[in-house]
């Protein structure tokens, strides 16, 4: 009955630990005495970890060169000057010379770095069509709206690959030359341009559209190249396994960077004589300067780095661990003082009770 809800509960409540709120419980009391060992333990562990990290980060060698071409910084400034009017000269080349006094321990990775480049801004970041990139023929013909205004070309043909990310593909290229004997001829160092993208990206996410009559070009027929691109996507490389949507440079580029300053892997050096690293000697990097960044205050760098178990060179983690660890130790000492000073008092309190 509706009013029976108001009659006194006839049955007794269950007498269980749960209903009586008497569940066995651990009741930690945060006080100096308790946290003291915690702080010391954490502090020591962190300092140890930090030292390890610091040294392993320090063991990583890094060699970088800003080839943006600011005035007076090298021979790329010519190309950069040309870049000013937003019409990059085709294949303006410049070079970076450096010499290694000793072996650059390998394996050596070649990165390029862009600064002030907001790959993470919202409208840029969404401007892509993953199903087009996965080779779906229907998506190839009908890119998603997010790609606009790089969805259809002025002629009304679908752009492949569509979107702002693809349109802004980084298109500088580098070759590395090694002058093995001093004064001798420069020998090209083989750059391994494969395997620079995530394995899953290359094998799962990115696929070329099904070949038409065995030809990739035919598969892309009816599509337009992105406005900034000098050539269609199927001409990115001559290697059939590295062209079209599965061109590794392209795949790497499509993984948008987290921060406005970012690196992207360009190549690995691990072939032939260079599998252990770059031997000592003079080197030259030939740069094909295409990519205009000076307009928006960006910089381009080229970086050689070795890699340890924790990735590239980054002293931060080690330092951070050291700092936090020392803070913990410091707090531990504070706690110790507090503990010693106030222990007696607390005991008195206890006695009073």
């Amino acid at each position: 009955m509706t009013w029976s809800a108001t009659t006194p509960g006839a049955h007794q409540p269950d007498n269980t630990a749960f209903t009586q709120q008497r569940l066995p419980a651990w009741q930690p009391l945060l006080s100096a005495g308790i946290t003291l060992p915690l702080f010391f333990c954490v502090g020591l562990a962190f300092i140890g970890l930090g030292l390890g990290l610091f040294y392993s980060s320090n063991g990583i060698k890094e060699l970088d060169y800003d080839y943006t071409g600011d005035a007076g910084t090298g021979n790329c400034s010519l190309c950069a000057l040309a870049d000013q009017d937003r019409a990059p000269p085709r294949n303006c080349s410049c070079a970076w010379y450096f010499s290694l006094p000793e072996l650059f321990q390998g394996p050596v990775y070649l990165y390029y770095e862009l600064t002030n480049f907001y790959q993470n801004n919202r409208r840029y970041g969404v401007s892509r069509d993953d199903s087009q990139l996965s080779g779906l023929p229907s998506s190839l013909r009908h890119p998603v709206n997010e790609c606009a205004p790089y969805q259809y070309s002025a002629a009304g043909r679908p752009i492949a690959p569509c979107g702002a990310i693809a349109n802004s593909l980084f298109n500088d290229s580098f070759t590395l030359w090694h002058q093995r004997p001093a004064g001798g001829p420069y020998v090209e160092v083989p750059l391994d341009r494969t395997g620079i993208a995530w394995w899953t990206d290359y094998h799962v996410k990115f696929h070329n559209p099904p070949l038409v009559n065995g030809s990739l070009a035919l598969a892309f027929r009816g599509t337009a190249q992105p406005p900034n691109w000098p050539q269609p996507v199927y001409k990115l490389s001559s290697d059939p396994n590295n062209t079209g949507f599965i061109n590794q440079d392209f795949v790497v580029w499509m993984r948008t960077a987290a921060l406005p300053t970012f690196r992207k892997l360009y190549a690995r050096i691990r072939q032939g004589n260079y599998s252990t690293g770059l031997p000592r000697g003079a080197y030259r990097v030939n740069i094909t300067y295409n990519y205009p960044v000076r307009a928006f205050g960006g910089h381009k760098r080229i970086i050689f780095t070795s890699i340890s178990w924790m990735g590239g060179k980054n002293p931060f983690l080690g330092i951070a661990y050291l700092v936090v660890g020392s803070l913990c130790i410091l707090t531990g000492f504070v706690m110790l003082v507090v503990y010693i000073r106030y222990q007696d008092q607390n005991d008195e309190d206890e006695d009073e009770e």
Partner: protein
Amino acid sequence: MERDTAAAEEPAVPGRRLRRREGRTRTVRSNLQPPPGAEDPAAKGARHLADNRLKTTKYTALSFLPKNLFEQFHRLANVYFVFIALLNFVPAVNAFQPGLALAPVLFILAVTAFKDLWEDYSRHRSDHEINHLGCLVFSREEKRYVTRFWKEIRVGDFVRLRCNEIIPADILLLSSSDPDGLCHIETANLDGETNLKRRQVVRGFSELVSEFNPLTFTSVIECERPNNDLTRFRGCIKHEDGEKVGLHKENMLLRGCTVRNTEAVVGIVIYAGHETKALLNNSGPRYKRSRLERQMNCDVLWCVLLLVCMSLFSAVGHGLWVQRYQEKKALFDVPEPDGSSLSPVTAAVYSFLTMIIVLQVLIPISLYVSIEIVKMCQVYFINQDAELCDEETGSRLQCRALNITEDLGQIQYVFSDKTGTLTENKMVFRKCTVSGIEYEHDANAQRLARYQEGDSEEEDTVPRGGSLPQRGSTGSHQSARGLHRAPGTTSHRRSGSRAEARRASMLSKHTAFSSPMEKDITPDPKLLEKVNECDRCLAMARCQEHPLAHLSPELADVFDFFIALTICNTVVVTSPNQPRQKVRVRFELKSPVKTIEDFLRRFSPSRLTSGCSSLGNLATTKATHKSGSSSLSALSSECSLLRVEDQLGGPAPVITSNGYSSGAAGWAPDPKPELRYEAESPDEAALVYAARAYNCALAGRLPDQVAVELPHLGRLTFELLHTLGFDSIRKRMSVVIRHPLTDEINVYTKGADSVVMDLLLPCASDDARGRHQKKIRSKTQHYLDMYAVQGLRTLCIAKRVLSQEEYACWLQRHLEAESSVDNREELLFQSAIRLETNLHLLGATGIEDRLQDGVPETIAKLRQAGLQIWVLTGDKQETAINIAYACKLLDHDEEIITLNAESQEACAALLDQCLHYVQSRGPHSVPEKTTGYISVGFSPLCPPSEPATSGPCLSLVIDGRSLAYALEKNLEDKFLFLAKQCRSVLCCRSTPLQKSVVVKLVRSKLKAMTLAIGDGANDVSMIQVADVGVGISGQEGMQAVMASDFALPRFRYLEKLLIVHGHWCYSRLANMVLYFFYKNTMFVGLLFWFQFYCGFSASAMIDQWYLIFFNLLFSSLPQLVTGVLDKDVPADVLLTKPQLYRSGQNMEEYRPRTFWVNMADAAFQSLVCFFIPYLAYYNSDTDLFTWGTPITTIALLTFLLHLGIETKTWTWLNWMACGFSVLLFFSVAFIYNASCATCYPPSNPYWTMHTLMGDPVFYLTCLLAPVAALLPRLLFRALQGSLFPTPLQRGRQLAKRSPKKLSAPKETQGPHVGEARTDPSEPRSVSASRPHSQDYTSQASWRRQQPACSREASGEPSVVDVSVPLREAPGSSAAPERYPGDSRTKPSRPAPLASIFSLPGFGSLRWVSSLSLVSGLGSVLHFSRSSLQVDKQDGEFLPRRPRPDRDLCGLTAASKQKQATDYF
């Protein structure tokens, strides 16, 4: 069938529209009769009437979705979330996949909808069950009663109910198998009262000889519209011959009640279904908003503001960013879809909207749902607490309001009723005084003491249940329950009269209010002797003309006194072992005089003119009338015969003796074990039992007669002419009877002494008789005051003899009043007042209302907890003060300020005087401290930490009249300020309305959290007004419980409810709400810092899935578990250290400052959690979401660790929940990141998590960031725990360090118990093996000390009468009476208490004489009459005595000035 009056006039208009216009009455006709107008068929008329189908469901299958959604969108938050979700569908601003963004809000809506649906379904099921109950309805076709479902009953149907059936609708009783046309019902379902109520067949129908035939019912019933007043029903029935008979609530059988003791009844349905009073009263649970929630809503608004600020900031930033890079034609700048460039302003607007979507997490969508879940669990736990379950009655605490549990932890003021709340409301007759002679009843007092002692013994020695064969099974069951309990937790706290209570509960099925303690009364030998003498005398003299004249006036008074005790009530006699019909003896006068014709028929006009001198003549006429009118049936009473014979001079003694012998045979043998008295109020029962102890036993009660059994006189049957019931305004009840011995018409009145004493016949002071009367009165008044001092409830018994003319005259107007439909109550009230004048005082009774178990301890605890306790009672001042002492509300070393004023000006003057005194008496109470800052003013003035410095505490006692003045607009501030200075406030003689006004005042002016606790109907308004209303499901029905938020079985459970559950609920919820804000701010902070690195483009590095489900799935469970289970301090510590309750009162857990500190910490933590991954992945080739996922993980870990720091108790559930959260996050991430290679743009997180798991930096950041983020908080908490622990932390440390120490003091709850135990004079040895009995022992010993103490108070010259001349009071420090030590050491103690009481006119003359009735220990602040030199009589004192006047003015002005700055 039924029509409304308006409907009848315009039959063409459809019923629905008519309903709005229908008149104030309803007309009911029999459904069996053809309708009066052929054009108005029954079906049409009945269409707009509620049928008896019960439909409490809100929804139908069709209406569920729209209706439920509509209801849910009443909550603003839901609208907001839907708005945000819909915003996501706009392409330019969308942040997430639109469908995904809808998910959480849909989830929340769905959960709520499901809950509603489930509740509705269970309602539907119970409705269905009830609708399909069967009952007998008269069928027109079959001409007999057939079984129909309840739902098929319609208004106008005839229903036949058998014994123990539940009444299906509101039915007008037309016929009963009972020969008197009575029907007994039990209304427990309706109001919880278990005593049987009597209902009466409509007058005119009860005389029918044959069985009632519905087919012949042609009358029309007119009655009021359906309303929810259970105590009222008005209407009349019009017979075909035009005769009108009034209908009252006594004729109604209300739905939900049960027919008892009556074989079968027939009635016509008046109200059905939802128009029944039971359902109109069923308003469902109440919804209040708790203080915490109000505060939280305010902080939610802050969050909204924060959100808007963040979004605005972002928008501006984005606008600038767009402007900067657009010009430069940056490669990453994306033009509008049509290729045109995006203007910075548009971009900013888009960004703003997108930011709102992205940062919506800041407004916690799941907060409301989580709070509701936590509250549900809290209510569950409170309901489940075995310690809040009264073993004796089996009733337990009920939470009727579901969402104010945390308010229990913040209460600052407790307003308590006295009777039934602090006391048992089990009345025990203690003393009486008859015609100025007091009868001490020493033996009775000893007996009571024995009862109290006996409780503890009985506990262990007497096998429960065995002593009570009739309810043995229950007893053994209860004992079994008792054995199951852990001994440490419950039973040792149950002191007092447990066995008695159990016995009472066992009997309660049959009788209300009668434990053996109340029933077995040892009579006072002197009085018994007198009663017997009366009895003998009367028995001898009964044949004479004026039997009572043979008695001395004193003996006559004694006789009348007991007759009044016996019959002036509404007690029903039942004899459960015998069917009622056999016991009853019928009497030929069917009903009391109800019409003037009836009266005239009975008393011929000649008699009216000749007056009462012709008594014999009247009797003769009457006798002839009787013999002529109808033959006396065999059953007709010997008493009536006897009376006839008495009047006639009694020529037939044989018959008379026959009559007596038969009466003796029927009644004398031993009626006591067979008769049970069922009273509506416990003091009635106590008085009837008392009278029975004096051999003056109530033997039977019918509507028109009362039978009284006396040993020598035998059975006297009084013709009951009228009963004027008790009401709280008149404060008295009366019966009008015809005395069988004298045939006089007597009025017996029983009522509060204050009113009855004013209604007495003014006695002439010139003759001896008058002087004697005066003396008797003053003596009685003296004894009354003494009773009051002893804490007894006093009642005056008075009598009035009416002459025939007086009666006739009164009757005429009374009948008019009775038959009027409008304004009936008012007229009846005035009629009663006309009757109850010129009374002759018979005597007074003192009834003890025993304190409930554990009340003093509870009050002490609550006070230690910083609660101010006000007692608002209707009792007289002395009684209230005494009870207040008994329950330790007042202390003997307290100063008591008594405010009794008879006029507004006097009240103002007194208040000023008191304020001055208060302000002068201690620097700490100078209101500078409270200046303008209310929260400071909250802190009670006498915290236990500094009692030594502040001197004695103050208490305020104010009576109802002064209270009325003090509550006037111009004085209420002063009154409140004064009351705030006092440790306890006692309002006596207050009306229900005043109670609620006081509560409202404190609540609104002091902005304090108030709790009102009461048990009776008079407390309902107070309970409703307070923030938290608590009802005691006690003796006085269920009205208070119905109005309350929480219902308790006993007052003492308030302690645990507030101090433990209230504290827990508050602390849990406060911490959870804070945590919620922290969590969301911290999470949003991460996103906000990122905006600085993505051009404020409202981009998010956290995957949208994580963003949306983070709150809902990953981080919700641990906080819920903590919110439900966390105990900041264990219950036993809370109980031993009630001071810990103050943290809730002062809102220590959740105040604006904590909120902002919390937010700041959240900002810091988000900075750490953002920048550590930022720097760790700086200069790397990580992509956006591979970088965002570690941040999400870090956030989750930080939340859990933060919760870990804040969680005080870790049960396995907490561990499980935390583990579950982490596991859930990782497994969801794994599955999600592996599920689809090309879905979920733009994040497209394929294989991200899997890659991260192989990256050591991921683990390194996940380890570092939470530790670094929480380091400050951990440091602070640790330092706080060691250096400046809050009281709560101390409590926890205490519990942790010495768990055994705590369990030891549990045995001795409360200070006085401990004292009592150390008392060497304690007769009972303390047995270590039986810890329970110790408490009972101490309880009992304390109880015995109490009367002694008050006797001492009255006996010793103990009152310190200090005069404070008014002109000295201002500014001066009123030194002499400040310290109790001073006053105690004073050699001369003027004015012993007794002498004060014997002051003539004491009761009426205390307008300014505020005197405190204190025992010798107390110090008294006494603004005596002499000091003010004014009196009630010279009301024009102000002009006459200019100096005090000026002083008063100055005072008032000064304090007014102060008031402006100081008071509030």
